[in-house]
């Protein structure tokens, strides 16, 4: 019986096998083991991953690993983040997420930068503009300035310490003009174009134009396959993806598939920025269901797990029903079941409330 309780507490404490913390189990353990330090000691010893025995001055004290504390902080914070983000204005949310990516994850194009593509491509034109306005109000600079500058600035930075980066680097980089390699940032023009777009929101679609642009995209893919130039830098690709309206783009993608036999998404596989952009523009619901699925995978990193909160909070009142349908279609399971199984405690309850039946 004690073992069962131990396991339950272990699970509750560590968020293992899921995201969030099982607050109820923790509190009941606290109550149950009141005035029983030996029970707590037993628990610590049975949990060698996070409480390690040490010798010398630390003998007899199962020391708590700092990594574990940091991990716990993240897990406890999930509910906080979900609640705070839920309460904010959608535009402010998007601005803060974008800012977070730019300030903390600006080393090249990683999974975190995908959040920028997500915001730029899945929000309505006026909502994207609202996010840009909110960004200006919060940070006194425009979003595009920071995207262009921060991603460029740190392409060559070698300093690893965060403190040094924030104090010293800015000064030295400011004084020495750097020779920046544009190869490293080949996706920057595309990203900037996506972030500053103000797309037409109506239904009007020109079939002729769609045909023409599908052909241009096909030519770009072909010429990049022969190694001549990176497809993400192709002028036509950037122009079409960053300026055309979404209905127009979907028509173009459809014709592309008819012409080439493969979807544009498949042909852009492995291209940073491009693949996400096409997915977000063409079928956001499917993209979001993939992101959610990624948060529950084994070995999902911090960004992937944080994405779960971001997607659920931002889409709860937008296209959550479509996301549920897309998820069921893609993974053969109901989203609510998967979320219930893989999250704990109040965080789980909050997510399920947002996802709805």
């Amino acid at each position: 019986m004690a073992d069962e309780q131990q396991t339950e507490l272990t699970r509750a404490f560590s968020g293992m096998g899921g995201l969030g913390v099982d607050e109820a189990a923790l509190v009941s353990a606290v109550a149950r083991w009141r005035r029983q330090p030996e029970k707590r000691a037993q628990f610590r010893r049975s949990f060698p991953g996070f409480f390690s025995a040490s010798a010398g001055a630390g003998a007899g004290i199962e020391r708590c690993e700092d990594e574990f504390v940091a991990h716990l902080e993240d897990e406890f914070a999930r509910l906080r983040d979900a609640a705070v983000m839920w309460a904010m204005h959608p535009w402010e949310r998007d601005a803060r997420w974008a800012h977070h990516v730019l300030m903390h994850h600006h080393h090249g194009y990683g999974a975190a930068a995908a959040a920028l593509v997500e915001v730029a491509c899945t929000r309505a034109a006026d909502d994207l503009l609202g996010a840009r306005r909110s960004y200006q109000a919060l940070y006194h600079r425009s979003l595009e300035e920071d995207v262009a500058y921060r991603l460029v600035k740190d392409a060559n930075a070698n300093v690893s310490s965060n403190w040094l980066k924030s104090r010293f680097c800015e000064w030295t980089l400011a004084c020495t003009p750097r020779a920046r390699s544009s190869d490293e940032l080949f996706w920057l023009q595309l990203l900037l174009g996506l972030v500053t777009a103000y797309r037409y929101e109506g239904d009007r679609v020109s079939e002729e134009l769609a045909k023409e642009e599908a052909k241009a995209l096909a030519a770009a893919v072909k010429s990049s396959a022969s190694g001549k130039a990176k497809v993400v830098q192709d002028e036509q690709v950037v122009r079409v993806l960053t300026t055309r309206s979404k209905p127009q783009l979907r028509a173009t993608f459809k014709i592309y598939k008819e012409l080439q036999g493969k979807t544009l998404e498949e042909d852009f596989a492995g291209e940073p920025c491009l693949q996400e952009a096409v997915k977000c523009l063409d079928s956001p619901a499917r993209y979001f269901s993939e992101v959610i699925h990624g948060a529950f995978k084994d070995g999902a990193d911090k960004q992937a797990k944080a994405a779960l909160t971001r997607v659920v909070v931002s889409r709860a009142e937008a296209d959550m029903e479509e996301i549920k349908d897309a998820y069921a279609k893609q993974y053969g399971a109901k989203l609510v079941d998967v979320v219930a199984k893989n999250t704990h405690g109040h965080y789980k309850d909050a997510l399920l409330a947002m996802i709805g039946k």
Partner: protein
Amino acid sequence: MATLKVPATVPAVADDCDQLRKAFQGWGTNEQLIISILGHRDAAQRRAIRRAYAETYGEELLRSITDEISGDFEVKPDHTYELVISDRLLCRACSADDGDQRAVILWTLDPAERDAVLANEAARKWQPENRVLVEIACARSSAQLFAVKQAYHDRFKRSLEEDVAAHATGDFRKLLVPLVSAYRYEGPEVNTRLAHSEAKILHEKIHHKKYSDDEIIRILTTRSKAQLLATFNHYNDEFGHRINKDLKADPKDEFLKTLRAVIRCFTCPDRYFEKVVRLAIAGMGTDENALTRIITTRAEVDLKLIAEAYQKRNSVPLERAVAGDTSGDYERMLLALLGHE
């Protein structure tokens, strides 16, 4: 400062509509009456007149001005009528040989609509020498530029960026699309270190003749106006001369001219527009499109400053130069907007 003169006691909107209606009836159109009314009403008043006219007579005011315009009525959410003028027809009417018709039409439109129409024309008929897009992108505030883009969606059912991207080519596209997409921060905050470092970057790229380098475009198309002004000042302090001087390597290079226009629109818009007007008037013939554009778009903004700059530069008052170079109703319209009594 504006040159537009609005009478001290403005007639009631209904009276204005009445008079305008009379101007359209009978033989031909009484242009002088139209000019004497519309040429002395500000944007809000003109909007009210258009709305009242459509409600009273069931016809868009602009349609009455030229029979060439036709289109469908669209009832807007606030239950007013809005004539959705097909882009092709409006632009044909605007480029009608009748210079004064174009002036009156452009003047009557809301500032955002006007810029949208001008931008559409500039994009569709894009040429490297065309600076209209630069003017609209750089000599308007962020909010105004955004209003232009919204008006563009409404009128042309496409985004401004897509049209510019589809028609401009090469380096020009690389510069113009981000320029019109920008939503610059409007605050006064300036980061001096940044101004210093970006001035250095600009200098380096220009020195190596990499005029269309990503960095130059990034700086010019994303930084706030206050930040850019600080950067240009630092450039001057650091390198002993203004940035535009370094951009004069090849007098025939249109891209360099475009870059210089961008910078001038930020730093000294009234002098930039003075030059456009001067070149429009000077020599044989008159570039009516340019003259109309500057006068109608700046009459409620800073045409007074432009006129002062003109007089200073050419020792002739702008009104006199315009009167000397134009005639008839066209001249009357322009002079009315210049504040001529």
